[in-house]
């Protein structure tokens, strides 16, 4: 039902400009936000940032162009700060399991995801790639998930 497969960096190249910006930023900074805040802000609208925890990972940020904003609207995305899950809990558990792995391992992972999600009573199939990576603020560490639906392939940052 949920199919999550590991991919190499090559799978993201040319897929969407936000992936290129994020990979470049991670390469330059190692995930330390203070090292290049301007570069970080370039892909922030597509990003989700969570603080990984075994009982669920509360949101620090949910961008206006991220999947929750696209599926449920910007108001819902803005209301997720401090919350531990998107409205579809089963989906959330399946895709959130790797946040702890990335936080503990300290390394980015790239995945292709195929899964169903329930949005306002309708189950729809999702196909997307995501880059999950450590995001290091001054006070603590979090995990960023840059997930972009495959239908948006080849779009620029504009």
């Amino acid at each position, binding site marked *: 039902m949920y199919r999550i497969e590991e991919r190499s960096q090559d799978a993201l190249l040319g897929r969407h400009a936000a992936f290129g910006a994020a990979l470049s930023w991670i390469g330059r900074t190692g995930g330390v936000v*203070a090292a290049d805040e301007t570069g970080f802000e370039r892909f922030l609208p597509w990003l989700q940032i969570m*603080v990984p925890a075994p009982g669920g990972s509360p949101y620090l940020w949910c961008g206006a162009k991220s999947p929750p904003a696209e599926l449920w609207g910007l108001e819902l995305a803005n209301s997720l700060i401090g919350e531990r899950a998107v409205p579809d809990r089963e989906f959330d558990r399946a895709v959130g399991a790797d946040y702890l792995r990335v936080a503990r391992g300290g390394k980015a992972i790239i995945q292709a995801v195929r899964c169903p999600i329930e949005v306002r009573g309708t189950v729809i199939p999702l196909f997307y790639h995501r880059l999950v990576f450590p995001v290091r603020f001054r*006070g*603590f560490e979090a995990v960023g998930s840059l997930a972009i639906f495959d239908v948006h392939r080849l779009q620029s940052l504009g």
Partner: protein
Amino acid sequence: MPTSVKAQLLSVLQDAGIAKLNELIEREGLGVLTRGLVKQLYDVPSFEDLTPDQIAHFAQTLEKLDFVARQVHARPTRKAG
């Protein structure tokens, strides 16, 4: 609510919001997120452009950010060995 009482309440909320904002930026390094939130939530370039009502609303969001950050700091650290 009388206008003067409302003005006083907003003033308190503004002061609390600014104090919390500075704390999150200085202590946690979340300046990039707080700036992003101002733009995403209210479509204005900076905190200084928010209206008193927006500042009062923004203060609630900052409290949520602060709550998450404090939970991280409150977690027990794993002992070596």
